């Protein structure tokens, strides 16, 4: 359990949110030109690292908006929260 600072509503408890997986995955411009392996790489393969991870979250039981979040998966410390379409404030 942790507190997430929703960029629209402010600080809320984690149970109001839904995790939406890894952020900043770019859809290939020409999917028809990809091999099955490359397509599977885009579609299914996600990082699951111990450490800093960039994620998408949805404030499902609040404003229902999506946003990005930088989280340290080892201790659930939230490093940054930023809106969709914005560049991550840390690398």
């Amino acid at each position, binding site marked *: 359990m942790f507190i997430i600072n929703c960029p629209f509503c402010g600080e809320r408890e984690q149970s109001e949110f839904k995790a939406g997986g890894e952020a900043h995955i770019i859809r290939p411009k020409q999917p028809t030109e990809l091999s099955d392996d490359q397509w599977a790489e885009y579609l299914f393969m996600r990082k699951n690292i111990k450490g800093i991870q960039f994620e998408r979250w949805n404030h499902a039981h609040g404003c229902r*908006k999506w946003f990005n979040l930088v989280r340290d998966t080892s201790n659930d410390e939230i490093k940054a929260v930023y809106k969709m379409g914005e560049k991550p404030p840390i690398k």
Partner: protein
Amino acid sequence: MLSYNQALKGKKIFQDLQMEEIKPIMKLIIRGKKREFISAVGKSLNILLPTESNTSTQSDKLTALWLSPDEWMLFSNETVREDSNHYEIKELLSNKISIKNLGAITDVTDQFVMIELKGNKIYELFQTGSPFNFNDFQNKKGAVTQTILNKIDIIVHNLDKNVANLFVRRSFSQHLFSWMNDAASRL
């Protein structure tokens, strides 16, 4: 509102807490992103939509609740006629907004049930089943939040000291109301 069955029957009275369904109340969800949308709503209804998060504004007839940066709920301050589901305000907004593609207007009168809570134990009741921190909220008149109560999505509007409105989806209302009665009896 036609062939209307009351979702929650009767007024429940506890020590320092009363709850009752208020009906029929007209409720609309309005959505729009453009600046012209906010000004068109303002001009047609003479109400300024709140742009600051978790706040509300009020005019003589209507209250506007902030739900999200592009979504508001409008509801009538007084009960409306029971034998009709035709609302002038919806008609007006449809003409000024939907037709001009500025935004969307949805009638949610029947979708949401409004429960009025009175008394100084409102937030003690909410604290028994909600992850939201009501400490600042309860002192801020007009504050609005969407959160969870007993795992059910709700909208809470702090109308005044010791008066709050709670909106819940109709299908969840009976369960939530019976849970609230149970929780209130143990406060």
